[in-house]
């Protein structure tokens, strides 16, 4: 049980660094408060997005019985990102006059619908095949589809300069511009979904033996699949709405954790929430430290870590034939 002290220590270190590191001089008494506030929001956004994506990764890996599954690999993140853009576009073209809705609310809703659509398509196809390659290819096709649709939305949005900028900056994704209202909306969503996933943990443990065995042991497999898809969609929507399209967190974090936290979902999920938060916080600090003209996007850092790991896992799995 030394896992949690370790994770909390890492969180403390990463949290301190996240406040202290970055462009801007903290010794200037006039600007110090503003810098600290901005970095605080940024810290919270990175932690929340990381926690949500890591837990989402744990759940989809259980749901599809596949250690290579993660929201970004399956196209769920791309779906959420596209949904968010559509919401932003619709708001920009019409909703701005409605008054009572704000973009901070409408973007997560769009993200949720996009993520759930992507997962629903996958679940539909997985009724027909449970093959590893089929799952990854379907995820790839979904990602490609949502990316091209996103490009279309971006081009429509260019008609007005303001809207174009908003859509582009959203699709690039960053935790640096996240404000308190976005955080206030995403925090309860992500928190509730993580707790819900924890509660569904025992049913997800059952699904590790496949649908038939799970059902024979008393699980209502259909309900478990759809509720899990809904919670994952909430998590990914929350993450994308505060951090944009950040990939591979849901792949890397559960994989790093399993040797320490095991396979049982009720043990893995809280650990993944904490470790995912720390991981994305660390990636954000790296992004700030890499010398470049403009700051390196967060998704680039996670991609540089996640993509090689994904390939390594793929080679190992094909060799073991465990999931092929």
């Amino acid at each position, binding site marked *: 049980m030394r896992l949690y002290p370790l994770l909390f220590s890492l969180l403390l270190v990463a949290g301190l660094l996240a406040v202290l590191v970055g462009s801007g001089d903290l010794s200037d008494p006039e600007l110090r408060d503003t810098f600290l506030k901005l970095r605080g929001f940024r810290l919270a956004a990175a932690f929340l997005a990381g926690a949500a994506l890591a837990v989402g990764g744990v759940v989809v890996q259980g749901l599809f*019985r596949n250690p290579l599954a993660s929201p970004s690999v399956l196209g769920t993140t791309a779906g959420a990102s596209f949904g968010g853009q559509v919401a932003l576009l619709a708001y920009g073209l019409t909703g701005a006059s409605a008054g009572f809705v704000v973009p901070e609310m409408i973007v997560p809703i769009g993200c949720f619908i996009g993520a759930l659509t992507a997962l629903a398509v996958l679940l539909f196809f997985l009724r027909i095949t449970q093959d590893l390659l089929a799952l990854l290819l379907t995820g790839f096709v979904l990602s490609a589809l949502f990316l091209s649709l996103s490009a279309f939305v971006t081009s429509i949005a260019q008609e007005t300069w303001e809207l174009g900028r908003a859509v582009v900056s959203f699709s690039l994704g960053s935790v640096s511009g996240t404000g308190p209202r976005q955080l206030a909306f995403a925090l309860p969503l992500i928190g509730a979904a993580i707790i819900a996933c924890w509660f569904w943990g*025992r049913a997800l443990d059952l699904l590790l033996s496949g649908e038939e065995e799970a059902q024979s042991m*008393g*699980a209502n497999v259909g309900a*478990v699949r759809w509720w899990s898809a809904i919670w994952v969609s909430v998590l990914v929507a929350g993450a994308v709405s505060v951090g944009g399209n950040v990939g591979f967190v849901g792949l890397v974090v559960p994989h790093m954790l399993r040797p320490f936290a095991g396979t049982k979902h009720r043990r893995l999920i809280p650990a993944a929430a904490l470790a995912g938060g720390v991981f994305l916080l660390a990636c954000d600090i790296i992004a700030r430290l890499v010398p470049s003209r403009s700051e390196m996007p967060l998704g680039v850092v996670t991609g540089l870590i996640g993509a090689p790991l994904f390939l390594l896992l793929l080679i190992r799995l094909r060799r073991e034939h465990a999931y092929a």
Partner: protein
Amino acid sequence: MRNGDGHLPLRAANVGVSLGGRRVLDGIDLEANPGEVLALLGPNGAGKSTLLKALAGLVPYEGRVDLGDVDLASLSPQKRAQRISYVPQRSLLRSALSVRDVVALGRYAHVGGFGGLSKNDKEAIDHALRTAHADALRERIFTQLSVGEQQRVLLARALASDAPILLLDEPTAALDVGEGMAVLALIRRLAERKHTIIVVLHDLADARSTTDRALLLKEGRVVERGDTNEVVAAEPIRRVYGVRLIENARIGFAPESDPDA
């Protein structure tokens, strides 16, 4: 005594199954009673495993299956799992769960998705592990066990649910002679504890040594039923398998402790 409480008979009337447009089972009637082992026999493709899955409510079926006075189709998956335990030939579990955690999954029927394990649940898990002689394996990782050991753990998982009806799909397939005998002996012991047991068996000699009554299937229909000794007899076997049955022709094995050996 924990396991087998409830003494529940299983009755199927006119059960049929179609899979992918193909008629796999047709007009099956059967009855299994507490304290009795019923064998499902027949060549490959006769529909034995499908029948077992239908009786467990795992594939859609026509006709009627009753557990005591209750219609199987009226039960939720959880209520069903409290009455029936189904043991697959091999588990699809590929994750690194410990044996104790695997057996604990068998308690889901009682705990449900949201609760935690009570003292009673833990006792049921320990009892199941001892009954299936899997106690020494409890800290081992399931996927690292031999096929025979895995089979004992799957039996323990089924027993942990305290379900009075046990459905076993070829529990001795891929086991060596010693492992197979241990599993068959366990099945007999469970029958003595008034479990209702239906078992798919490939080996007709095993069926004779272990089961009380048998159903011989061919192409989805019952062609012979009755005491196992009468079903596994020259005439039905010739009709279904196209082979001649020779009494006492096989070499036999017995556990070392068996005084008759």
